[in-house]
């Protein structure tokens, strides 16, 4: 396949001694001319994925293939060259260089690819014309509206005719008219054969997406009635990183809440006993399990779906 192939991508890093996996075995494909939308809440790994695709962050394991190039294997100058020649970036908050005017901002990536300054500026003028900013060539970012800055950022991302365009929240903070203009531009680029990967919270992009990658797996609402669960001492109730589904209330026995450490092993966060509950935040917020629950003694639990659990808590109040 000559497009983008992401296989079993894992990114793990250590924070406060704990291992965190914002990406855990992610896979997807996108052919040239496809627009991929990454959907997910904050903290779901969208930006981490964009960083990996853009050659800014090296994944812990897995593969990213763009055409014939294995991106995850690149380093040093080869990585710089990949970012310079094959990838276009549209950063959130525009991230234009404040000291440069619109055409210079767009021309910089072109100059990095070896074009002369005059060539790069001519191409920048053309690109800015395409995004409707021919009247704003010599304006600095502070003299442009948010929408205009975003369009400059898009034009900058297109300068080197990238195989892969990565856009981080390209419609954030834009009104519907400005957002529509950006979406139309992304559609045009897609039609020219570029693989576009867009990270967003914005549902307005969903209808135009060719592929949607859910960064947090959609867990079907659990429609089970509250029920009793028995767990023997030493058995796990759930494991850190699992999809969250049920909330547990302890009727008898004790449970250890543990967190996995970066170098292996685990640390005991707390031991809970009869009348206490655990595992509530993951299902309520849509996050994976952030810790492992292990029965310290034989356990008797009542398992609730999040809705029933919430109703019970509210009833007690």
């Amino acid at each position, binding site marked *: 396949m000559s497009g983008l192939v992401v296989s079993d991508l894992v990114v793990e890093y250590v924070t406060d001694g704990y291992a965190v996996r914002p990406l855990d075995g992610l896979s997807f494909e996108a052919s040239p001319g496809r627009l991929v939308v990454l959907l997910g809440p904050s903290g779901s790994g*969208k930006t981490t994925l964009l*960083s990996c695709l853009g050659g800014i962050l090296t994944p812990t394991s897995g593969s990213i293939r763009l055409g014939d190039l294995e991106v995850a294997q690149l380093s040093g*100058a080869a990585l710089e060259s990949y970012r310079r020649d094959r990838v276009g970036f549209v950063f959130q908050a525009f991230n234009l*260089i404040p000291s440069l005017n619109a055409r210079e901002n767009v021309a*910089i990536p072109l100059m990095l690819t070896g074009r002369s*300054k005059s060539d790069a500026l001519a191409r920048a003028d053309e690109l800015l014309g395409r995004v409707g900013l021919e009247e704003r060539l010599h304006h600095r970012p502070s003299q442009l509206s948010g929408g205009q800055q975003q369009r400059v950022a898009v034009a900058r991302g297109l300068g080197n005719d990238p195989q892969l365009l990565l856009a*981080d929240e390209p419609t954030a903070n834009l009104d519907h008219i400005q957002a529509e203009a950006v979406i139309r531009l992304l559609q045009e680029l897609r039609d020219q054969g570029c693989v576009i990967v867009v990270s967003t919270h914005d549902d307005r992009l969903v209808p135009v997406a060719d592929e949607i990658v859910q960064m947090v797996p959609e867990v079907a609402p659990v429609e089970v009635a509250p029920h009793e669960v028995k767990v023997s001492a030493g058995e796990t109730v759930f494991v850190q990183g699992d999809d969250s589904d049920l909330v547990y209330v302890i009727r008898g026995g004790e449970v250890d809440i543990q967190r996995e450490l970066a170098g292996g092993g685990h640390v005991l966060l707390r031991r809970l006993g009869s009348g206490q509950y655990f595992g509530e935040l993951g299902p309520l917020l849509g996050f994976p399990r952030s810790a492992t629950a292990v029965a310290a003694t034989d356990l008797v639990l009542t398992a609730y779906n999040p809705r029933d659990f919430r109703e019970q808590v509210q009833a007690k109040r």
Partner: protein
Amino acid sequence: MDGSAIVILLTLRDLRHRFVRFAVVTVLGAVVFTLLFVMTGLVEQFHREPVDTVDALGASTWVLPQGISGPFTAAAPFSTDAVAVVDADEFAPVIVGRAAVAQDGSEDVVLIGHEVDALGSPPIDEGRPVAAPGELVADDSLDVDIGDRVMIAGTELAVVGLTSDSTLLAGIPLVFTELTQAQDLVYDNRGVVSAVLASGEVRAIPQGTVATSAAGVADSALEPLDGAIASVDLVRVLLWIVAAVIIGAVVYLSALERLRDFAVLKAIGASNRSLLGSLALQAVLVALLAVALAAVLQLFLAPAFPLKVSVPTRAFWQLPLIAVGVALLAGLAGMRRVANSDPALAFSGASG
């Protein structure tokens, strides 16, 4: 295209973008560099003054009593009889002494007594040399004119000529009079002299004396200023540190403020070398602009100093070179910050 066009573009645009700050830093740097120019000029003058003054007396060798380092720092007169023992191509006795010239106040001078038209008689800028007792040639820093009458040790002398750059011990003017007049004024004894000046080959000197080169005499005249020179040198070191702190601080601040910009540029493929080059060029430009401004400012400041300030020509290329080195060193902290910056910062502000 190499990265130089990008380096220049980023540097010049950022200088324009933060113009006020860079202008203030350039002016501050220029003030420091102006003081460095002046301090350098003072030290240069301290070293040049005795050499010029001693050379102007025309002698390559000074015959001095043993045990003294120089005629300007110690008084040890010896008998005029000894002069006859000296055998050299050309020689003449002189009197050297400290005196005070009274005319609208009193000013310390170094008094030189020499034979008429002999070694010891200085080049005259205006008027004529001393031709007889009762006459005086003075350095123009003494603020006397030809025809003035001044009092030295209770004796009235007529100013007949002026010299220039005849000073010693950091600006004390020299005055010249006829040998016997000086013997009367300094020792009240015509049987002694302070030294014998000689030029050409020196074949014999009296017992109890030594032949000292003019350079040696000049060096000895500098000894009383050793402390002052060391102090000025220390001030110069401190000024370099101040200059480094000023330039380093602005480069570091600029690096901190531009971390996001640098992250974006790295993300889109800019090399560390280009970005560091931009920061380094900024430091160098600020330093060079400050030095250029200082080179002009010192022209106005130097005349205000009570001592003559002789900024050597070499200072006008050495100072910028050192300034560039200091600026690069000072900017290292900022450059290291940029080198270590993470291009992923370009995505910061994102919420995913």
